[in-house]
């Protein structure tokens, strides 16, 4: 059953991270991505790991749901890691030398770092989508795009298009599911046969799906018109986004992370007389 697939994989819970303002969460995710790219020393990875673990604990999302997102990219991570090991040029401590391939300690470390970076990127963004409903996300984006109004960018239209698209994904998913069941009941077989046969077997699903998508779009356009949508230039919101103490705490916490990463990169500017560059 496709019932398990909820787009944006939102995980309903009542937690600190869930209650944060979506705008702040969006900015913090961007900040987090920057921090991940700033990382040089393996010690800063420890800082980031702690940061992510605290974030996950503060979201009340079971670790299983979060790791599911990592499982999806594990192939990409492994592939880049292997390529990095082989194509990293430089490094002195040679481990294996065979034909044109040289594997050095440095190349292994580099590959490990890149792999960790990818995993952290996915973990951070997943935490955002798991704790924020798609509607809240678009609201947040709309609010963040507000400066673009100055250059007459139709942010409100873009936002409504985004939220309609997001809103309709689960509906269309359900529709796919229904049509598939109906065609299965008529003996359609989606599971066996080669690639071509399977692709062709999807036609009885895709055609009704397109027909219904257009029908829905038509009906929605009519409904929007009937309610005089866009007739008022200044729309008010039912749910007004408000910053709270949680947002301040989250921002402070992320600032701490960036500071830690920068400080570790610079070995605390030599204040303590040791080097952390590994």
């Amino acid at each position, binding site marked *: 059953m496709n019932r398990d697939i909820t787009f944006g994989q939102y995980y309903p819970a009542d937690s600190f991270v869930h209650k944060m303002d979506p705008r702040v969460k969006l900015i913090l995710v961007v900040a987090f991505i920057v921090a991940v790219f700033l990382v040089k020393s393996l010690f800063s990875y420890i800082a980031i790991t702690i940061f992510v673990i605290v974030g996950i604990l503060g979201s009340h999302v079971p670790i299983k749901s979060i790791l599911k997102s990592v499982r999806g990219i594990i192939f990409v991570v492994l592939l880049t890691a292997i390529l990095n090991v082989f194509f990293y040029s430089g490094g002195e401590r040679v481990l294996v030398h065979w034909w044109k391939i040289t594997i050095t300690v440095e190349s292994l470390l580099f590959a490990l770092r890149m792999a960790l970076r990818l995993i952290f990127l996915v973990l951070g963004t997943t935490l955002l989508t798991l704790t924020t409903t798609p509607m809240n996300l678009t609201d947040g984006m709309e609010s963040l795009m507000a400066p673009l109004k100055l250059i007459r960018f139709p942010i409100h239209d873009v936002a409504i298009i985004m939220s309609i698209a997001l809103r309709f994904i689960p509906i269309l998913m359900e529709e796919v599911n*229904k049509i598939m069941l109906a065609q299965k009941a008529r003996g*359609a077989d989606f599971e066996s046969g080669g690639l071509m046969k399977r692709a062709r077997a999807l036609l009885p699903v895709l055609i009704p799906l397109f027909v219904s998508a257009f029908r829905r779009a038509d009906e929605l356009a009519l409904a929007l018109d009937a309610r005089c949508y866009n007739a008022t230039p200044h729309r008010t919101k039912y749910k007004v986004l408000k910053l709270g103490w949680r947002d301040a705490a989250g921002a402070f916490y992320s600032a701490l992370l960036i500071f830690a990463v920068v400080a570790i990169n610079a070995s605390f500017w030599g204040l303590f007389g040791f080097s952390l560059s590994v």
Partner: protein
Amino acid sequence: MSIEVKDLSYTYSVGSPFQKEALNGVSFSISEGETVGIIGSTGSGKSTLVQHLNGLIKLTSGSVKVYDIDLSIKKPDFKQLRATVGMLFQYPEYQLFEETVLKDVAFGPLNFGATKEEADAAAEEAIRLVGLDFEEIKDKSPFELSGGQKRRAAIAGILASKPKILVLDEPTAGLDPVGKREILRLITSLKKSYVKTVLMISHNMDEIGEYCDRVLVMSEGKLISDNSPQNIFADESILSGTGLSLPHTARIRRMLETQGVFLQGNPLSAEALAYAIADALGGRS
């Protein structure tokens, strides 16, 4: 026995926050020739139940047997099962996809292993059976048909596979009163000549009362009653708490009782009610 369901339970999305128990210990059997109505409010498990009969939901607990196809074994013959049980979903016109009506109706038989000629012959028979003009309609695109015609074409698509059991999920939803009556009349005539057993989900108690000879009442995943419509609609006791109401005919009978007019039995069609009232008021003229 054409259908035997024993202790059937099913839970959606096990282990996620969306986990929902849809069926809980449902058991019943249906013999060949019955017309059975299934009623229950939204989310009572009716659709989950009938989807099991067609192997569209994997059996997880309990057993389902359709003729001699046992669904609790490891690899049941789904093709055979789906050819035996014809299933009409809600708004079946949304499953039409082929270029022509003939091709669309022949889709089922072709899937079940018929040759092109056999499938076309079966499709022609089915299209005529549902009361559409075969010559006029066969080369039309299904999307050109009117709403009522589309639904008939979709029903023909199910009948073309010559099912022994017909399962209908709200066959009259979204149709106007005339369309509703026509579809019900079609189902009644099919029942006499073509399919042996009919299962029908409906929210319309009038239809259930008039057309079914047995009713299963579902509530929160449980089968709370399995009886004749006359008994189930005798008073509100069985339906209380299910969100369902009595058919209009039964309500009129109850209203008459409060006025001191007692009818013989529990007439559920408009015609039977009229006769019963005439009898109670001192004979027909």
